[in-house]
């Protein structure tokens, strides 16, 4: 009798141990699927690529820009702020108080791009042309992500003669591994390789420029070469964009960049509720928004208002509590609930070209003057402040740089322009410190450092 019970117990046991499936419980949540089921078809890869685009908003949607501005000299931070913006603004970011968000989001974009590249050849339904386009888009995104990180987290190109100073990790696969930092030279080399390949393979149009085109790749290349002091190539690439006739320079000034100028953009959609550019919210001064980042009073007085009649003064800025002790100057050009974020746009490319035209080995003064005058004509509503055709190269260069600062105020360009000029040999001070001051390089999150990965030095 007892045998029977023992046998029964064992049978029950056998039954359950054979039910391996009892121990396989997968997460059940809306919008969650298993990795093993995730990438099977061309559409899946396309969705993965869309996700890589989507995360661009995590760093170029205002985060990269505001961090750059906080380090530079255009803005001031509102009193009483207690988050990591204080550390960035005071230029002592640490392993705990730093802009980890830009870093993290950029590498998420890189991971998604790498997964696209790794899966293109493995899924069903992929045509050659789709494969080529998607690979080019992934390379474009991978490049602009690396470009964002290397500008904030390393000393600029030109800081050392060979650019063998520590840059950032180059990720060209989806492996999870500990890696050392690559040199700045290596990072720029990889960025150029990706962008050049993307330029070749990208289409000329792609869903209203919310996706990458060969024009976006050219604009990105122009910025990269510009940062590398390679003004020859920066001039060439920006000229290709400016002269393409795909984008139209808007004759009238508007507070937000006109659609016709946008080369690559992130788009909000009020109907669907999609919102990008949320990180520009720290500038906003509309409704109940009180801006945490404000225009530096001296910049407002001496730079922005330097020329009477500049229409940008009233269109881009608003003075609060004028004359009172608590007066401050707010940006108004970011006041939008559902903004469109321009990543590359014509105005910037024209100003880049103007400066590159003057700095390249055989200066093109005429083009530079024309570009500057286009901007000024629009800014003043007339030609009264235009450069004369006889203006000297120095005057034009100074004008080009001033206009670049005025047009792109708050958009994160000033810091990298100053570092570029400093590393090219100019004596540049940024809000009281040298262009190569350690505090002007953002510190990595404490958890990123390990035996292989050395953090940045911190100010004492």
């Amino acid at each position, binding site marked *: 009798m007892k045998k029977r019970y023992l046998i029964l117990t064992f049978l029950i046991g056998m039954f359950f141990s054979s039910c391996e499936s009892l121990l396989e*419980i997968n997460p059940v*949540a809306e919008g969650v699927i298993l990795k093993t089921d995730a990438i099977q078809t061309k559409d899946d890869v396309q969705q993965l690529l869309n996700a890589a685009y989507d995360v661009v908003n995590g760093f170029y949607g205002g985060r990269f820009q505001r961090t750059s501005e906080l380090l530079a000299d255009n803005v001031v931070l509102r009193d009483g702020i*207690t988050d990591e913006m204080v550390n960035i603004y005071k230029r002592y970011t640490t392993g705990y108080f730093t802009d980890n968000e830009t870093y993290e989001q950029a590498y998420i974009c890189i991971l998604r791009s790498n997964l696209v590249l790794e899966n293109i050849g493995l899924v069903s339904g992929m045509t050659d042309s789709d494969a080529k386009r998607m690979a080019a888009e992934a390379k474009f995104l991978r490049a602009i992500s690396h470009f964002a990180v290397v500008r904030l987290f390393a000393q600029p190109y030109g800081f050392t003669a060979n650019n063998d100073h520590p840059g950032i990790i180059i990720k060209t696969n989806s492996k999870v591994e500990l890696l050392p930092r690559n040199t700045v030279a290596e990072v720029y080399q990889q960025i150029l390789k990706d962008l050049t390949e993307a330029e070749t393979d990208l289409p000329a149009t792609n869903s209203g420029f919310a996706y990458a085109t060969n024009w976006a790749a050219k604009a990105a290349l122009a910025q990269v070469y510009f940062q590398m002091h390679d003004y020859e190539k920066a001039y060439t690439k920006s000229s290709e964009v400016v002269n393409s006739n795909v984008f139209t320079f808007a004759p009238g000034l508007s507070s937000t960049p006109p659609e016709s100028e946008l080369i690559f953009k992130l788009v909000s959609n009020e109907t669907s509720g999609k919102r990008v550019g949320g990180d520009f919210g720290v500038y906003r001064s509309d409704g109940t928004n009180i801006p945490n980042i404000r225009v530096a009073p001296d910049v407002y007085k001496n730079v922005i208002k330097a020329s009477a009649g500049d229409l940008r003064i009233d269109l881009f800025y608003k003075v609060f509590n004028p004359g009172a002790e608590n007066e401050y100057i707010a940006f108004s050009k970011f006041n939008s609930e559902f903004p469109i974020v321009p990543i590359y746009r014509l105005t910037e490319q024209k100003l880049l070209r103007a400066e590159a035209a003057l700095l390249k080995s055989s200066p093109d003064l005429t083009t530079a003057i024309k570009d500057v005058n286009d901007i000024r004509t629009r800014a003043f509503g007339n030609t009264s402040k235009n450069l004369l055709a006889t203006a000297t190269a120095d005057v034009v260069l100074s004008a080009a740089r001033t206009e670049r600062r005025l047009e792109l105020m708050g958009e994160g360009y000033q810091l990298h322009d100053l570092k570029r000029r400093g590393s090219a040999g100019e004596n540049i001070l940024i809000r009281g410190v040298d262009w190569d001051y350690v505090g002007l390089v953002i510190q990595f999150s404490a958890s990123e450092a390990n035996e292989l990965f050395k953090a940045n030095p911190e100010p004492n």
Partner: protein
Amino acid sequence: MRIIRKNLNVLILILSLLLGNFAMAQQSVLTGKVTDSSSGESLPGVSIVVKGTTNGTISDFNGEFTINAQRGASLLFSFVGYITQEVKIDTQSTLNISLKASTEQIDEVVIVGYGIQKKREITGSIAKIDSKDIGDKLSSSFESVLAGQAPGVSVTSGSGMAGAGAVVRVRGVASINSAGDPLYVVDGIPITNDIFGLGGRTGGMNINPLSSINTNDIESIEVLKDASATGIYGSRGANGVVIITTKKAKGKELKLEFSTKQSFSGPTKKVNMTNSAEWLQLYQEAWENDGNTGIPQKLPGGMTWTDAQKYDTDWWDEVTRTGYKQEYNLDANFGVAKNLIARLGGSFTNNQSYLVNNDLERGNGNLNLIYSPSKKLNLAVTSTLAKTSTSLPGNPWDGGLGAAMGYALPIYPVYNADGTFFKGGGNSANPVMVNELRKESNDELRTINSFILNYLPTSKLSFSFTGALDFMDFQNLGTEQGYMRSSGKDYRWKNDRKVYNWNYNVVANYNFGLQNGHDLKAMLGHELQESLTTGVNTNWDESREVKESSTKLRDEHWRFLSFFGRLNYMYKDRYIAQATLRSDGSSRFGKNNKYGYFPTLALGWIVSEEDFLKGNNLLSFLKLKASYGITGNSNIPNYEHVGTYKLSTTPEQQYNGLPIRYPEKFENPDLKWETTKSLDLGFEARFFEGRIGTEFAYFLKNSDDIFINVAISTSSGYGSQWQNIASIVNEGIEFSLTTKNLTGKFQWDTQFNISTLRNEVTDVGGLTTEEIGGGTNDTRILKGYPVGTNRLVRFSRIDPADGRPIYLDKQGNETKTYKFEGGEGFAVPAGKVIPDFTGGLTNTFRYKGFELSTLFTFSKGAQIYDSSSKRQMGLASNWNFRTDIFDRWRQPGDIAKYPRMSLEGINYGKDGEQWFNSTMWLFNGDYIRLKNVVLTYNIPNKMVAGAGISAMRVFVAGTNLLTFTKYPGADPEVARDHDDARDRNMSANVSFLTPPQERVVTVGLNISF
């Protein structure tokens, strides 16, 4: 002794049915009753055997028996825990026997996993606490009564809030990221105790799923500590197992019990905050020290100097009151039908703590039915239902008592002139407003139900089947009135979790019935447990176009599939061996480690049974024991080993109107349990016939594969992942001593226990302390240091010349610069939260009907990091000061404890810094506390018998009446509200505006009918 009897009830019932009545003819019939010699209560289940025969019986539920025996024969009356009595039969036909309790508690039984064992034969380390030691000690939740009563079990009571839980750690801390709590098993059901899964922190305390268990319903608590005891729980036993046995039906006789407790409470200490004039003076001093002159400007809350002088609000008084608690229990025991007995109980508790707006109300009902249709079969159903509702003040920093010690300045009024609440300092600065306009509560409905079937086909073989369901509906809900919100519109929320936790187990026991002094028993079992938690968070915001917004949370679903067995062997009543093996499969483990195997082996030797000690009057009992085994901990989040992708589910998640999908979690197919290898060596000894008893244990727990939620290198694009990385060692000694100092009319018993603990993180897999993280409480994981090492900048002294704090840099050189983190930072391991030793001392005095019992608990060697004092005694800010700051530097030459007053971080070593995490706030956490004192009077039966009362007891009890400590903060016994399981492991002794515990005086009454 009564307790053991109750525990054994079911077994006795079965035994009595089994043995039956072997009557023989032509003999005289004897009837009688067996009672307890001290209490006079009837004793059921006493074995009565005619000496030298197999003729015997068992006393029934009224202690009565009938037996046939020849004249001149002797009857042996024996019962667990009592001295066996031999009575010669003469001419009598009735025989009333009173049995004397044995001081030698050798036959005491202990609940072990999936069974019971005689304490004498146990080779493991198990601490047992009887209901007697639980019942009168007032606590908001049952686990806190373990404090000081179970060696090796560290219990850190949380705070003075109603229903606040305690951090319970068995033999140290062996986890980092995963919950280090022991496994709680109620009547065989591993119950839901997932604090953070339910929502973690609400209103200033962690959710406590154990608070729905009524201490009055608990018969006993056994804490299994070493591997040989917890091994049968395999992958879930490494952090110890707490077995809770509830009271069960016993006997057919109708018995009613009523008890009530009425208590008043206050805080153990009032923290002294400055009043308005003092605060203003300190602010002015800071203002002037910083080089300013004139009337200080920039007062917080938009106050002007003149206005500030008008008010003097004592916020502590505004948010505290005299706590009042009442508890009523009514239990009935009765026979329902033939072979069917029942226990039905109900209770109501209203526990109002000393904090305004902090009331716990709980109603409990429970039913136990035992049906014994035949001597081979026994069925039992137990069902409990508890409805608990706890109202909560705000988080420490924005409401309740915490605000009164922080943001709520004495210069702020409660009300504006127009009668509205003052909110110039923000919501956090007016806890009266928060209490009034913000209502939050934790509402919980919980029911634990089990069905047990015991079947004994032969005298050697038995089976049991247990099926159980533990269901919990937990809601955190509340409303916030528009006046508190920037939108001006009301806001309401409800976070709902439903936990379905069910299991069954089948256990077969076989006694081989060997001869010649060999005794071999085997147990085999199988268990399946499944748990599903669903959750929905909903909120209603009147300022939104669509007011209701609801989020469905991920289902948390897991299973454990287990097989286990135990072999117990004993030779000649003295040589003992036990082996257990459990295999656990779990849905939480990665595919490369789906099953874990957990073996243990234990040996024991009852030396006192040997000829050379037998009959020794000095050493009446000596047992040596040793065990070694492997156990595990599986408290990991579900699905952690699974690689997942996310898909866009709403248009706003899409990119440019097109769907997206992306990797969410990186897979870890190797994920498995934490492995603990435990060695336990010990002895139990009793001297002078049990007047002195002592137990000693040495343990060494090597825990490997400890989970760390590793931040995967950010450059990989993934976030974090649980990996089995670290190693921790816990080593210690436990010693307990029980003495009967005085016997006779005036009795005095003493129980003393002490446990030491050495805890060290021995490996962190090459991770830096930053990668492991720790954050809010400045406690860290560092190789070579204990779990929860205070990592702080060392404070050296105050410079008498300028009153600035002097710190020590990494090399130990004095510096006035404060630099915390980074490679160049000065933060170093500076203290630890784990005590070197803890323990308790209980003295019990009895005289006639009176009993006085005192319990002191003590702790030595831990530091307390009073995280909030860096703001209460640091820079002048929008926080109130503690009066401790009066001992500060004021003028050159001053030797002071605290630095000069200032508004600027630069004066304390770093520009822009407000919070200086230095050892200035790290305090000695040693304490001795009179945890409990109870004075009981058992009213003599004859005085109350007329009213149909069989027993009546009144008592007065005090909790936390006295505390001896050097700790300057609120309470040295503290566990703050934690962020997550890691924080709970690492930051036991960290305080952040944590309300001190309650000092309670209780009067109670117990009546039995």
